[in-house]
């Protein structure tokens, strides 16, 4: 369904483009120039961060852009003298577990709300949807007092419990599950598939692109999460990557070459994932953004 709409959009765009701009040649060149200039501005901070991370401590305050004597020493020092590897591992565990949990619970909830008839269906949906309006900042104080009372401070569970479900994900999955044909489910029911089997073996495979988009966003969101981890983490070993970099940089003061190396190490995996999955991510933004 999504591909058909996309194809129609492509046709529409082509037709509109031809009638919209009669004086193409000059305008086109200007468009490329403007886009390239903007693009340079956008990537400059990254290129500059990478360049700096390869400079020696004496070279970093010198004028030239590119390191004369590139060195990996900053990276070595970040990896050996700070707890960077541990922070990386912490972030990975937390992002992976929350992504798994959101993918499972949100698609199950979305399926149930879209495809099963039962009393209270609408009310439950509205209640879940309304939680979207509550800002995280309002919840962190109660989460904190709750975590203190229950001993969750400084634990993996404490860092990740707020991310285990997502109202937005439920909304998204319900939208997509609505498109699963009832006849298909009924046929499988007659063949003796259990209710859970219908969800896992019929509905879930049909909405796989939506689940993939949800997984990518959940992973990125939890990988980059800052305010709650900052509050709930107390010991350096439990820090996630963003908290580790923020506090390490605060402590490292003017050790800019180390800060830039640490930032490069934090950015590179995300960029790599993005470049591999960029089509899904950008189409996911369109799907999720415009339906929200």
């Amino acid at each position: 369904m999504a591909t058909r709409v996309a194809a129609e959009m492509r046709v529409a765009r082509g037709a509109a483009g031809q009638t919209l701009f009669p004086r193409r040649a000059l305008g086109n060149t200007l468009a490329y120039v403007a886009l390239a200039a903007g693009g340079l501005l956008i990537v400059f901070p990254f290129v500059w961060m990478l360049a700096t991370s390869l400079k020696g401590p004496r070279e970093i305050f010198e004028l030239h852009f590119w390191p004369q004597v590139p060195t990996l020493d900053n990276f070595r020092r970040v990896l050996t003298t700070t707890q960077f590897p541990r922070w990386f591992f912490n972030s990975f565990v937390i992002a992976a577990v929350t992504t798994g949990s959101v993918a499972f619970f949100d698609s199950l909830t979305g399926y149930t709300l879209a495809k099963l008839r039962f009393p209270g269906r609408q009310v439950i949906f509205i209640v879940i949807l309304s939680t979207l309006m509550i800002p995280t900042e309002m919840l962190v104080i109660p989460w904190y007092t709750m975590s203190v009372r229950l001993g969750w401070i400084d634990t993996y569970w404490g860092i990740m419990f707020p991310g285990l479900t997502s109202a937005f994900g439920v909304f998204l999955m319900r939208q997509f599950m609505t498109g699963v044909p009832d006849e298909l489910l009924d046929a499988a029911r007659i063949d003796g598939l259990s209710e859970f089997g219908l969800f896992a073996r019929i509905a879930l495979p049909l909405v796989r692109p939506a689940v993939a988009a949800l997984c990518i966003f959940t992973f990125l969101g939890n990988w980059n999460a800052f305010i709650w981890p900052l509050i709930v983490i107390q010991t350096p070993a439990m820090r996630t990557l963003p908290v580790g970099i923020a506090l390490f940089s605060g402590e490292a003061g003017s050790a800019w070459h180390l800060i830039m190396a640490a930032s490069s190490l934090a950015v590179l995996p995300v960029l790599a994932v993005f470049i591999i999955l960029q089509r899904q991510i950008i189409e996911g933004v369109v799907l999720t953004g415009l339906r929200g």
Partner: protein
Amino acid sequence: MGARRALWAYAFLAGPLLFFLAIRILPAASALFISLHRWNIISPEKPFVGLANFREILSDRLFWKAATNTLRYLIAGIPAQLILGLGIALLLRRIVRFRGFFRTLYFIPFVTPIVAAAWVWQWLYTPTFGPLNRLFDTVGLPPQAFLRRPEQALYAIAAMVVWEYIGFQVVIFLAGLDAIPPVFYEAAGVDGANGWELFRHITLPLLNPTLVFSVVYGSIIYLQLFTQVLNMTFGDQGGPLGSTLTVVLYVYIQGFQRFHMGPAAAATVVLFAAILAITLLQMRFFSRQVEY
């Protein structure tokens, strides 16, 4: 048969509902409760104080500073984001080659960990050896203090936030532009409308839902600004003379550095009210259907 299926539905929903109740709904109620009490983590006595916490923050000069700053971020950031985002999207639709490449390029900041980006930007802005002042120097402009100067710091951060979200806005606008049926342009083209007239009378009105979404999304981002501010002005939180302080940073300082949970919770209730108002406004806008 129907009853059995309803039982399955409740079984599927039990886990997620419990989570939503325990992690979102009850804590939101609890934040309201805390905002009406004198709440000290260590003392067991938590007397009801009515609106005293609200009165306290409303008479706190720093809260007003945070509130007006937050508004200033909104006013500076949203138009810039909107105009640049729409401009880039329109340019992207003109060009045929490298469209995907540029779209990806502009989107990269959106998936980058904010903390890492914030430190890079902090160095870009460094007065003595930052690349921005070097660039100013080469083109003959006087050096600027950026984050160190009360009148500039807020806008320096706003620029970074615009940089971060520009790719998201571009993608949303591209999708919005794709949804405009090309027949309108064709008809107007036959009538002899020029490029500006097409933009003014067809693109803008038909793009209205996308514009509303973009403004609302942007507003919520700016209302919840925290990570960038904390990380770009780490040494003196809230920047020079509190010039970059936001409401969420105020909540963090009150609640988690001074442990004044009552006033902090009261500030989050005010934030919630602002976000609720914007969301309701959005729903009103969206329920008005665009007539073709």
